[in-house]
């Protein structure tokens, strides 16, 4: 289905991003998976996928650094000639209640989660517009809609993606490029397993389907939005949260 296409997935070597990389590469695309730390893990992830026949490369860079974004996009264009899909998935948490949250805690999360999405999008945009086609999917979160104690920075960054995505979707509507959001609920990844056991159980108790989501359950929605036949879907927020927020 995606033979000949090239995707960039930021934070694409683990968690939800890893599942997205796997799903899109299995569908035939080459996936350039970005990572900022953990070169060994990143290369391991790529090797695993390659050993199953997928075409994947990994690229080190920080999405909160615009020059890094330009460099990585340049690398991908040089080596693979095109970018069809951009999945802005890279995200961090630095959870603190407001009273304990420092300006640095605030900025770090906004810079990676929100500005990082701006940076990467800006870096690929002219290319996509020239080609007259593209798919951009931004990974937000249920928390962007509901807020969460201790996550004012994370929630703001994920909610900020709503306004960014809609504006960009409007700008690109007649240029053959769609821009959408996938907003997951609580998904079984390292980010979630770092939540203390009792707190995590309380979270699961609030999820109507009574379980965490699997990364693949998010990845298949991303894949769906990237398909050619999804061209009438733009500016949309596709949630996958087990009923946690409607």
């Amino acid at each position, binding site marked *: 289905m995606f033979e000949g296409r090239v995707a960039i997935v930021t934070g694409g070597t683990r968690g939800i991003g890893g599942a997205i990389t796997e799903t899109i590469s299995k569908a035939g695309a080459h996936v350039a998976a970005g990572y900022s730390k953990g070169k060994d893990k990143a290369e391991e992830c790529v090797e695993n996928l390659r050993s199953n026949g997928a075409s994947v490369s990994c690229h080190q860079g920080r999405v909160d650094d615009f020059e890094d974004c330009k460099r990585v996009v340049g690398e991908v264009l040089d080596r693979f000639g095109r970018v069809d899909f951009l999945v802005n998935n890279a995200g961090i948490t630095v959870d603190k209640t407001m009273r304990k949250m420092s300006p640095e805690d605030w900025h770090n999360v906004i810079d990676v989660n929100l500005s990082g999405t701006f940076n990467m999008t800006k870096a690929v945009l002219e290319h996509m517009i020239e080609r007259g086609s593209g798919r951009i999917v931004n990974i937000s979160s249920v928390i962007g809609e509901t807020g969460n104690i201790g996550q004012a920075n994370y929630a703001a960054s994920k909610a900020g993606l709503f306004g960014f995505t809609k504006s960009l979707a*409007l700008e690109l509507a007649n240029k053959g490029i769609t821009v959408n959001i996938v907003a997951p609920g609580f998904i079984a990844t390292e980010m979630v397993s770092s939540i203390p056991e009792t707190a995590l159980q309380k979270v699961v108790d609030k999820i109507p389907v*009574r379980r965490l989501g699997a990364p693949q359950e998010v990845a298949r929605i991303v894949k769906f939005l990237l398909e050619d036949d999804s061209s009438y879907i733009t500016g*949309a927020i596709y949630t996958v949260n087990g009923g946690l927020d409607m």
Partner: protein
Amino acid sequence: MSLNPLAGRVAIVTGGSRGIGGAVSGALANDGAVVAVVGVAPDRERTHELRASLNGAAQRVHFYEADVSDPEQCEAAVRTVIADHGHIDILVNNAGITKDHTVRKMTLDEWRDVLDVNLSGPFFMIRTVLDHMVERNYGRIVNISSVVARTGNFGQANYAAAKSGLLGLTKSVALEMARYNVTVNAVAPGFTRTEMVAAMPQAAIDVALSRTPEQRLGEPQEIARVVRFLVDENSAFITGATYDVNGGMYM
């Protein structure tokens, strides 16, 4: 991936003989599901035409007559589908009518008729299949709402209220059914190229297009594939959601 990913599944699609419903019936049948089109009498002939447009999948499409605004007819149809095909996995509440008028000119009948088919119909159909789905610990329900549920529309207070009401129904049933592996979601299409839209005054269609960033109507297949996605067994973590397909008309 298997050639017939929905093999063994039985789907009811109300109003499934034409328009968006016809495209949904085709999409599900093409993937191997048995499709029970539920519609009013004139839909029987339309279902023949739909079958003629499908190839191998045509044999999987069947017609059951029922007016969804009548709960007894809903019950009779569902009973017959289960008797014929053994079980029901999927319900797509797609049947819908318009009776457009500004509120100042809208008759009480025009208000009631649209609510009866577009909102009560889905309630009656859902109510009729739920025990069965709970027993089987499996169900996929999709309600076809509309972009105008979000935006409202001049001359469509009844239709917009029904389509918006569907969202409240969707979420409530989703909450009730979450522990039984029965998901309930809504798809909200924008203006789609169907007879329903063709019947609108050209001026209204022009206004709709001018408000659609992608400057075109949607195609029924574009809506159908979102429905197909949601009724997949792998969509288990998606429930109570509303998926928009509207060319950017509402975000």
